[in-house]
């Protein structure tokens, strides 16, 4: 059993991190990895007694909302600022794990795990989130999509911690949408997921759109080309959506694993785009037949 240290201040925490110790936030990923012997840390640094507010607060800084890395999913779901500005993130966190997991698990932990199936990630991508990394020599900010470099891999330096997540407010989007395809309705790792933000003109044509898919590639997948095909499309006109769906299916080369095959993932990556269409998609009732 590893020793557990409970630092009180950010400086102590950063000292310990610089010594190479492993951070324990909610433990909902860490303990799984320890049980599987993927990692065997000697010492864990637990964030529970930290007095520093930055790690545990959600703050409105004007143009941005700033979320501490150690804020749990349950607290984010209940937070009025997040509810007001980022419904897409709330929708995603609502599907993450179960009440127990959401009570323990943190946003920072979900990001650091950097799983392609991490449910907070597609929303954070479409929201253009930035991460703030803190070390003994100060902190730096970078975009989340640059920070995550592969499954389980990030640009975090060994002596750094993930400190805060910064998300710009999104006045230009009218529609926030998240969908997760899983094998069951709770405690389900995404076979596939998609986050979408859509801005509409007065006559309900798409004027701005952001899409991101989870579990489709090595990291969260985005597709400017697919987004481009949706620009100008009326929300109730299937044609543009069908074109966009075809595009994402062409672009990706998903994995096959015990959860699902690549063909299924490719097909459904497009189908989730079709869900956005508010018009009738009758021909699709018996399956889109694409690919």
């Amino acid at each position: 059993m590893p020793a557990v240290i409970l630092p009180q201040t950010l400086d102590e925490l950063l000292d310990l991190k610089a010594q190479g110790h492993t951070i324990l936030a909610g433990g909902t990923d860490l303990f799984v990895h320890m049980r599987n012997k993927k990692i065997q840390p000697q010492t864990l640094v637990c964030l529970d007694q930290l007095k520093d507010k930055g790690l545990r607060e959600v703050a409105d800084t004007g143009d941005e909302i700033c979320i501490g890395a150690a804020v749990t999913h349950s607290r984010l779901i209940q937070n009025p600022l997040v509810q007001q500005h980022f419904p897409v993130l709330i929708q995603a966190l609502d599907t993450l794990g179960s009440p127990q997991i959401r009570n323990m698990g943190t946003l920072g932990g979900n990001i650091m795990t950097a799983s392609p199936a991490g449910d907070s990630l597609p929303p954070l991508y479409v929201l253009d989130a930035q991460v703030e990394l803190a070390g003994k020599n100060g902190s730096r900010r970078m975009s989340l999509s640059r920070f995550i470099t592969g499954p389980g891999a990030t640009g975090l330096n060994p002596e750094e911690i993930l400190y805060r997540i910064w998300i710009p407010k999104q006045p230009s989007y009218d529609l926030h949408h998240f969908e997760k395809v899983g094998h069951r309705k709770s405690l389900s790792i995404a076979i596939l997921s998609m986050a979408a933000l859509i801005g509409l003109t007065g006559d309900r044509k798409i004027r701005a759109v952001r899409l991101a898919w989870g579990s489709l590639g090595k990291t969260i997948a985005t597709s400017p080309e697919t987004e481009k095909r949706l620009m100008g499309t009326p929300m109730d006109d299937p044609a543009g959506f069908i074109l966009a769906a075809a595009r994402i299916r062409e672009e990706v080369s998903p994995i096959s694993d015990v959860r699902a095959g690549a063909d299924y993932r490719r097909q459904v990556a497009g189908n989730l785009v079709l869900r956005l269409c508010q018009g009738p998609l009758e021909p699709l009732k018996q399956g889109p037949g694409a690919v």
Partner: protein
Amino acid sequence: MNLISKTSPSVGASQARPDALNKVMGHEKFAADYYGPRHLWAGVRRAGIPHGRLISVSTEAAKQVPGVKKILTHKDVNGSNRQGVIQKDQPVLVDDRIRHCGDALALVIAETSQALETALALISFEYEALPGIFTTAEAFQYGAPLIHPTHPGGNCLLSGQLVSGKGLEAFEACDAIVELTIDLPRQEHAYLETECGEAVYEKGELSIVVSTQTPFRDRAETAQAIGISPEKLRIIAPYCGGGFGGKDGITVQSLLGLAAMACPDVPIKMMWSREESFLAGPKRHAASLHYRLGAKQNGVFHALEVRADFDTGPYDHLGGAVLGLALEHAGGPYRIPHAAIQGKAVYTNNTIGGAFRGFGVPQVAAAMEQAVDLMAEKLSLSPLDIRMKNAVQKGDKIPSGTTLKTSTGIRECLARLKAHPLYREADAWKKKAPAHMLRGSGMACALHGMGYGPFVPDTAIAKLELTKQGRFKIYFGVVDMGQGNGVTFLQMAGDLLNQNYENLELVLPDTGLTLPCGSASASRSTYTFGNALIQAVETMKTRLTQRAADSLMVGDGDEFCFIPGHLRHLPTGREFPLAQLAALLGPEERITISRYRALASKETVTQDTALQMHGIPHTVFSYTAHLAHVEIDTLTGGITVCNYTAVTDCGRLINPDLYQQQMQGGIAQGLGYALYEDFITDKGRLLTANLSTYIIPGALDIPPMALSSVDLQENTGPFGMKGVGEICIDPVLPAVANAVADACGGGRCRQWPLTCERMLEILTIPVCPPGADMNRSLI
């Protein structure tokens, strides 16, 4: 103090089980909760290869690990080193041949779980690899290796056939024939409490506290396997943290016994991890089924052909008995005058196939009930009408040839289902499907026989004691694994004796205290023990009232009436404390014992003695009719079961809440079987090795359920009851299958479970006549 202690137990009332509060508070001790003050850990090195000849096991490195006490291999086993319920074909520790990845090679006893783990990893072994058999078809290929070279049937553990009427010839006289082929997966029990126990060997006596469904059989089986005489072995079975058939047979018992005898005087604990439970525990048999059903133009069934192959894995476990029950139930609760039903249980190098709630019936019902719907569609009858037309009544024979002599309520179930709002309003509901969704409604029926069949005596021995304090103790030997039979025994005895819960006490199964009662399985626990208990209570009542009459020098026993804690003398109104009466009686007089053996059928359904021994035919059957409403997301293939209803004939309800709980649990487990649980293996190795990839349904996946009972009286049952523990799961998969087919124009799944991926594939295939390709109508 229990909240319910002042209430009086009554049969027919929904009363809380006495263990409920204790379990919620965490006070009830399961086998997993037994820790000696100073105990050792035992664990097993498993093969990890599917098939090979063992040459040697090397334990030297492991012995050097600090904290390791002993390491045992087959050479240290003094008994037969073989276990199994019917065929003793499974080694406790492998001595010659490894037959699946979960086989045990060496047993380590250590002071800490860390030392145990380190030592297990250091054990190595030499073997000669043998080609493996991973499908039932491979088992019969030319040149296939024999998994048990001395087994007379080769790789076929058991095969059998039941032919009635003209058999296959009768298809010539059919106006319509439908055909269906399906492949069903293994299913994991996934109980909360994995296989575990604690053992201690002191002064030549071995005592094992274990999570089991079968304490008395365990004693005999373990004793001969490890070489101790049965009277020196005591098995104690606390409330079990889930069984579902997975603990119907030896799990940790023999290993713990060996460990304890090697390290006497210290308690030894073994607890399988979830992964070990997946690997080494038995599963529901994977099965391949081929069905052909023929009918006359008017919808009357005429002929049935069944071929059913069960993958029993490397050992019998209960594979032969599962096959037997499947064959007997293959034609469902219908009259079909001509049938040819054949099946095999086949040895492979996959995980062990064994008992699992339903015991072969869910597999055959899955095919039969879909065939019935295909026929209904072909003849343009409603699925309900065609079932009603063919449903059995008392006195009929089912297609396997068994005569139904006892209560037979499938028609009542169907009639009640027809009147249910979910049935009547199904079409309106389907029309309201939201965008991208398809909705369908489907039904399925089942019957399920109780008990062991004609050959193995289905007995229970109840013991009842009036304590010196004037309370009653019920000694029962049939495990309560969560199904709640314990409270039904209190209700029966309490009702007959008119005693409050505070005057009643249960003594849980323990070969040292209670008497043999058979297994907690086969939908028999409450039925068989209940019957024994009623006799014991009646004897006790007579004895006590007579003794009271004698000592008061009044007329006769019938002048007395039992009231809580007392006997009342009716002519005078005087009351005598039971404690006072108990003081007049010697210890033997305060105990009554009664044995009950369930009715064994005298009918000759088959001349095949192997099939008779494996349980054919039964005498008492429960019945059920289920209806599922499903919604399919055409964009993802995701299936939601929106509503569910079932009407069941399981006799009179002893405790309506327990009935609801059994039905709900069985249906939930059946939905897991139908839609979620895919036990994926590759050459005998598990790809879904634990609950993170083997998906069981969660609370949000379970629909609202409306569950009712037709409440017919079963005259042979205690207070008119019959078993409900298994019938609840039997027709769930086909009800879902039929609802899905209804939703998507006849699309049917061949390889189950019906995951979203398979569903999307079915939706993407252009749908031809009902049931694409394999599953089609022939004429």
